[in-house]
């Protein structure tokens, strides 16, 4: 399993969101995560792909979503890229703030951060790359506690 990598180029559609979620579910299961962790990873991937399709590429058929699953020595790493305007991590509102609590949207990145061990957001000019990392429990070099 270590070293395994799946790379896909997805259209900016709702079907891509479901495909990415299903691929991540299968990959996480084969990486040895338990049922609860698989659910968290799958949801984080779903939210990240929604971000790319909806907020990044705005359903533009000319723009693609890059999607990669990778099993490293100690982690599962998911990389999702879009070709949109770019996401400034410093400008993401806190969905837990009282003034934002009853807003309809704005919880995606928050949920991704809640469910993954590490989340890296990089601006691509144009576009955004989200790298989601979940450490495999008991794997060699597992550094989950050290990173918290």
């Amino acid at each position, binding site marked *: 399993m270590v070293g395994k990598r799946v790379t896909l180029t997805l259209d900016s559609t*709702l079907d891509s*969101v479901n495909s990415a979620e299903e691929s991540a579910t299968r990959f996480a299961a084969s990486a040895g995560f338990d049922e609860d962790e698989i*659910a968290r990873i799958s*949801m984080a991937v*779903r*939210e990240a792909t*929604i971000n790319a399709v*909806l907020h990044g590429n705005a359903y533009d058929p000319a723009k693609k979503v890059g999607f990669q699953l990778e099993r490293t020595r100690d982690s599962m790493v998911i990389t999702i890229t879009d070709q949109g305007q770019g996401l400034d991590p410093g400008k993401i509102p806190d*969905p*837990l703030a009282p003034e934002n*609590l*009853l*807003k*309809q*949207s704005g*919880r*995606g990145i*928050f*949920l991704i951060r*809640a469910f993954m061990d590490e989340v890296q957001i990089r601006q691509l000019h144009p576009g955004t790359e989200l790298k989601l990392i979940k450490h495999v429990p008991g794997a060699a070099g597992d550094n989950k506690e050290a990173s918290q």
Partner: protein
Amino acid sequence: MSMKANTRQVNGVMIVDLSGRITLGEGSVILRDTVRDLVGKGNKKILLNLGEVNYIDSSGIGELVSAFTTVRNQGGELKLLNLTKKVHDLLQITKLYTVFDVKDDETAAIKSYK
């Protein structure tokens, strides 16, 4: 599994039995249309039964919040019934558990409406 919504009335309370996934796309749209239809017909006591909802994403959470504010803005009350553990955990993480009036018994929930 796609989402389904069935509506029934008990003692003046409109109960919406939801099942499946409330996610971006069809699931969120069904929830939105169902609540708007009920509010449009003058219903002000709405109880969403989420007992068979096994999955909800941020779009689905957004639709629940939108339904809550839509009903409240019309002077009504929207409450939630029978949360699964996953949905319960999600509402806790997002601090919405304290916003919604959450019930786990249908009879008690119906009696709780003013």
